């Protein structure tokens, strides 16, 4: 592994000063190196702070006026206090304080982190690095020994808070996919992914610093317009018509997709990105549920047609607001349960947000993978696995598997719709899978030069795994399918296949799970075309 790790850090574009040196705040650069590096960047990046590692996810300004710096500093420290307050931060106090107090720095978690490993073990990407920085700041400002200059070094209370450090820490919280693989490795059951989330929360709820794709264009837009894609109810209804048309063309079936029908069994909520980027996915669900006789409805109410809840990655208040809306709409439609589509974080978000919803406002919920598994095990369909006679591997979305407990279901489904010899597992898989690199919102974040960072660090292990899974059939003549039952994973897969040229070189493409199922239904014409766009 080590030679490959090296290779990644030697790829062109890797910022200089890869050795751990904290001359400029907590980032990679010394002052000279940073000045030199800044001279090489395109004009659009000139005013953006890149001092953490040469990349920017948040686009924070290079120069911060002193008043702003003072305000940030005060807010940061008060936010840090709130994080450690059982009442003010009741939503995550217990897991957070355990990690805060007991992380023994045994560094077992570092061996689990795909980003840290892919970076060639750059110190700033180590899972415990964020906690370390946070605690050094805490010790510096909130302990007695932090107030005594000559004790600071010894007690590791030595990080002075200034605008640079604040910006770098904010950026740093967007260098972890919150895949929580590290938590699975931790002998004490502690969670560095959560620490990342809590830092983002501190920045968002206290300083108003967040990724605009998650906040302004994300939850805010979703609550205002109806979807984080900007899709209005009117546009949504148009798309439903388009889907019906598409189904007719592809299969000859005349299906009326139920919208706003009261009293159905399920309220099905897709990630709205599906309608725009992968319309065959919601279309496939419409076909599947029609043929299997599942009673469901879509909603055309704002937020009711978009399952995403980005709050789960960065902000409790937004998490609550969006989840509340989902439950409200389900109650209005008098459904028996909410059904989350092929979207990983939407599943995790509803699991997580459940406890901020009062019992009387809560509606049961489940996941489409569970329902599809149920349909198949009850043998409601006439399936022909040979329809999917091409190599298939399954990418477990972290939010469905490690964070959501759904691992066996997609495998039972695949075994029913793909010939046995064509299905292959990636190693490791299931609970121990690697994140695609799009976790925690990265899949929808494309600002500045952030895409390059994602591809090189966050997605590297996935690419490696995919190639290994297909190593016996890499030839260009054999089209191959990476099945990812999650919109964000699909977004990231699309980007990485393009970036690493996996389609041109190896004919590797990707898609959801329901497409495979519908493609295997023997009573209708084949549904799936193996293409990449």
């Amino acid at each position, binding site marked *: 592994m080590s030679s490959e790790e090296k290779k990644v850090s030697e790829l062109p574009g890797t910022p200089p000063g890869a050795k751990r040196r904290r001359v400029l705040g907590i980032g990679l650069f010394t002052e000279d190196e940073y000045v030199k590096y800044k001279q090489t960047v395109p004009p659009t990046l000139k005013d953006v702070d890149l001092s953490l590692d040469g990349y920017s996810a948040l686009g924070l300004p290079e120069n911060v006026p002193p008043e702003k710096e003072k305000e940030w500093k005060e807010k940061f420290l008060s936010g840090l206090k709130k994080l450690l307050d059982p009442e003010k931060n009741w*939503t995550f106090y217990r897991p957070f304080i355990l990690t805060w107090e007991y992380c023994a720095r045994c560094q077992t978690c570092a061996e689990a982190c795909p980003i840290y490993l892919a970076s060639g073990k750059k110190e700033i990407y180590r899972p415990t690095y964020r906690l370390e920085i946070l605690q050094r700041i805490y010790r510096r400002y909130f302990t007695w020994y932090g107030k005594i200059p000559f004790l600071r070094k010894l007690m590791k209370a030595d990080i002075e808070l200034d605008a640079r450090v604040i910006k770098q820490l904010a950026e740093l919280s967007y260098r972890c996919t919150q895949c929580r693989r590290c938590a*699975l490795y931790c002998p004490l059951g502690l969670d560095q992914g959560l620490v990342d989330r809590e830092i983002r929360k501190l920045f968002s709820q206290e300083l108003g610093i967040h990724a605009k794709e998650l906040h302004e264009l994300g939850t805010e837009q979703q609550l205002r317009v109806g979807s984080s894609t900007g899709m209005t109810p009117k546009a949504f209804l148009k798309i439903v018509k388009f889907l019906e048309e598409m189904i007719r063309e592809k299969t000859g079936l005349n299906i009326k997709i139920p919208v706003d029908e009261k009293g159905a069994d399920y309220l099905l909520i897709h990630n709205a990105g599906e309608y725009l980027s992968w319309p065959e996915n919601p279309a496939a669900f419409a076909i599947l549920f029609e043929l299997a006789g*599942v009673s469901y409805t879509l909603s055309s109410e704002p937020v009711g047609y978009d399952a995403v809840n980005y709050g789960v990655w960065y902000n409790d208040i937004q998490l609550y607001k969006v989840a509340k809306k989902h439950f409200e709409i389900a109650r209005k439609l008098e459904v028996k349960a909410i059904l989350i589509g092929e979207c990983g974080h939407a599943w995790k978000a509803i699991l997580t947000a459940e*406890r901020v919803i009062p019992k009387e406002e*809560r509606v049961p919920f489940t996941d489409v993978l569970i329902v599809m598994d149920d349909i198949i095990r009850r043998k409601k369909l006439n399936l022909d696995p040979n329809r999917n006679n091409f190599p298939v591997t399954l990418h477990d979305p972290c939010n469905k598997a490690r964070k959501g407990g759904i691992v066996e279901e997609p495998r039972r489904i695949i075994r029913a719709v793909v010939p046995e010899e064509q299905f292959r597992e990636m190693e490791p898989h299931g609970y121990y899978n690697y994140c695609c690199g799009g976790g925690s919102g990265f899949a929808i974040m494309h600002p500045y030069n952030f895409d390059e960072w994602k591809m090189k660090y966050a997605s590297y292990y996935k690419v490696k795994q995919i190639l290994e899974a297909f190593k016996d059939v890499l030839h260009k003549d054999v089209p191959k399918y990476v099945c990812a039952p999650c919109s964000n994973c699909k977004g990231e897969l699309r980007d990485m296949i393009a970036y690493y040229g996996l389609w041109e070189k190896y004919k590797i493409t990707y898609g959801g799970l329901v497409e495979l199922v519908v493609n295997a239904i023997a009573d209708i014409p084949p549904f799936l075309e193996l293409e990449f766009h």
Partner: protein
Amino acid sequence: MTVPAYVVGICMGFIYAAFLVCIIGTLAKLGRYIRAPTHLRWELYPVPHEKAYFAVRDEIPMLRGSFAQFYHGGLAEELKEMLPEMLFLVRVFRYRRRIWFFSLAMHDGIYLILAWFVLLLIDAITRLAGIPVYAFSPNPWGAFIAWLTIITGIVGGFAIAVGTVGLFIFRLADRGMREYATFREYFNLAFIFTVVITALVAVCTYVWNYMCANGFTFKNLVDALFGNHQGVFYEAMMQMLALITFDPSKLAGLTFVTSPLMLAHQILFCLFLLYYPFSKMVHGPAKYVSYHLVNWDDKPHQEGPLHYNYWGIIKIKER
């Protein structure tokens, strides 16, 4: 060299106090986490017991019964995962083998010493019942637990010493561990080591002197450890007896446990007990909370404390 009786008496009082503070402090610490507000669901799979999770499916009429065959056990499954983790540090073995040996030596050494205290208690009770307890006791039970006490104590003590030294060196040598360790981490290791090494040195000195005086035979070695009315473990048992019967007179005539080095050891040990609940080392008991109440907490429809003034800015739900 002997120490005055009142010093021994004070020392005994200190042991009671330290023991109580340690137990109460640890429980209070755990109570703080257990009583903390119900946090949002943040479980991490695989969750060894799957019951609650499947309940989510069972509350949906369309799916009811459909997944019954996948039910798992409850607490038993959790223990199956937890016990090997505690005893053999499975995760460290799998993912960080470099520090596993020393980490295991220290942790299992501590478990052995805890077991050793229980054994001393059993020794003392057995003796109270009138059964002679020493290595060559004619009573098989008395002999058995005496040997068990000897082995557990010695192996445990040496294991802790080796483990702490090894981990200390690793902390200094491994980049990741050195950069991220605070003064306290080194202090904790050094503290444990000092407590253990004082006892080990005292034991070795006593045994050496005894054998120099009486000859280097196996029998003398065993007698110096746990003989009839003599030996280090015999005296430890007598001290346990004095502690559980609140009777310092039982210490009369004991030379080992009242020697200055052993008194120093006991005072250090008490200081350790006093320090423990307030240190990072409570991670042992706290691990129960992080697994049972966080990573494996998949209980559906539990309400959080919605009335709280969340983040100091909003009430998430007005009631």
